[in-house]
C-alpha cells in the first residue's frame, strides 16, 4: 500500500507566517507518483472548500484521477465585520487603491476597492461582495500637448 503524504502549510496573515500540518492518504491503485492537476474553488461563496484533482498511472499504465475535498469551515471562527468603516482598527476590511508606479488615476478613473485585511482570521459573509468606489479624474496640464 502506497501512501501519499500531504504537507499542508497555512497562514492567517496572507503569507507573512506559514504554519504546517500533514495528512496521509491511500490512493487505491496508484502505481506511480501522484501529480496535482487542478484546484477547484467556489470563490464567491461563504464556503471555504476546495477540490483538488490529482492524476497517476494505474496498474495497467492508464491515467487515473483522484479527487480530494478540503474543508476549512471550522478553521474560521467568526465572520468579518466592519465593511462600513474600512481601515479602522476595529474593521476587518481595508481600502485598496491600485496606484501603480505613478498616481492613482488609471484610464481616467480613480478606483478604490474595499477588501478583507490580510492579517485577520475571519470569513467574508456572502452578502458582502467586492465593493468598488470610482472617482472621475480631471485632466491636468500634463494631459495636453501644445
Amino acid at each position, binding site marked *: 500500500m502506497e501512501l501519499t503524504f*500531504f504537507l499542508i502549510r497555512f497562514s492567517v496573515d496572507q503569507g507573512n507566517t*506559514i504554519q504546517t500540518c500533514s495528512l496521509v492518504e491511500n490512493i487505491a491503485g496508484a502505481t506511480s507518483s501522484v*501529480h496535482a492537476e487542478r484546484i*477547484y474553488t467556489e470563490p464567491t461563496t461563504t464556503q471555504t472548500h476546495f477540490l483538488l484533482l*490529482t492524476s497517476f498511472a494505474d496498474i495497467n499504465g492508464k491515467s487515473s484521477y483522484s479527487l480530494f475535498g478540503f474543508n476549512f469551515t471550522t478553521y474560521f471562527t467568526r465572520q468579518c465585520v466592519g465593511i462600513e468603516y474600512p481601515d479602522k482598527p476595529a474593521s476587518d476590511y481595508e481600502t485598496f487603491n491600485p496606484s501603480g508606479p505613478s498616481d492613482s488615476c488609471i484610464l481616467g478613473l480613480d478606483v478604490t476597492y474595499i477588501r478583507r485585511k490580510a492579517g485577520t482570521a475571519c470569513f467574508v459573509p456572502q452578502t458582502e461582495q467586492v465593493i468598488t468606489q470610482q472617482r472621475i479624474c480631471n485632466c491636468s496640464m500634463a494631459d495636453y500637448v501644445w
Partner: protein
Amino acid sequence: MEFGKVSGIDGLYIANRLQNGVKQSLITFNQGGSWSPLLINDSCADCTLNLYSPSSDLKDHFYSRHTAPGLIIATGNVGLSLNKEQSAANTYLSRDAGLTWKLLAAGSHLVGFSNFGSLILMVDDMAAIDSVQYVN
C-alpha cells in the same frame, strides 16, 4: 502565454519581453501606456521578478481573481532574466496588484482562492505530491 490580464482591475496587464537575450516580466497599470518591472526586495539590486507564464492557463501559474482585488500569486524567479529551469521556480505573492512582490513558498504551485481570497490553497505541481499549502 507570455502575456496576460490581471483579473478584477481595469488596465492591468503583465507581459514577458525578450530583448537582447534577456526575458523580463513587465507590468502596465494603464493598458500598455507605460511598463515597469516587477519589484521585489532582494540582495541583488538590479534583479526583478520574472514570471513563467503571466496568463491564467490550466495550471494557474499566474493566479488572480476579481473576487480578491489586488491579490496575485505567480510562479517565477528573481534575477536579471527569466530562468525556466524547474529548480529556479518559486511562488510569489503581491497584494498591490503586481507593483511589489514577496516570496511566498519555494517551488511551483497550483493556486486556488475561496471566499473572496480569505483562504488560499497551494499545491506543488512540479514534484510528485508531497505537499498542499493554504494561506488565509
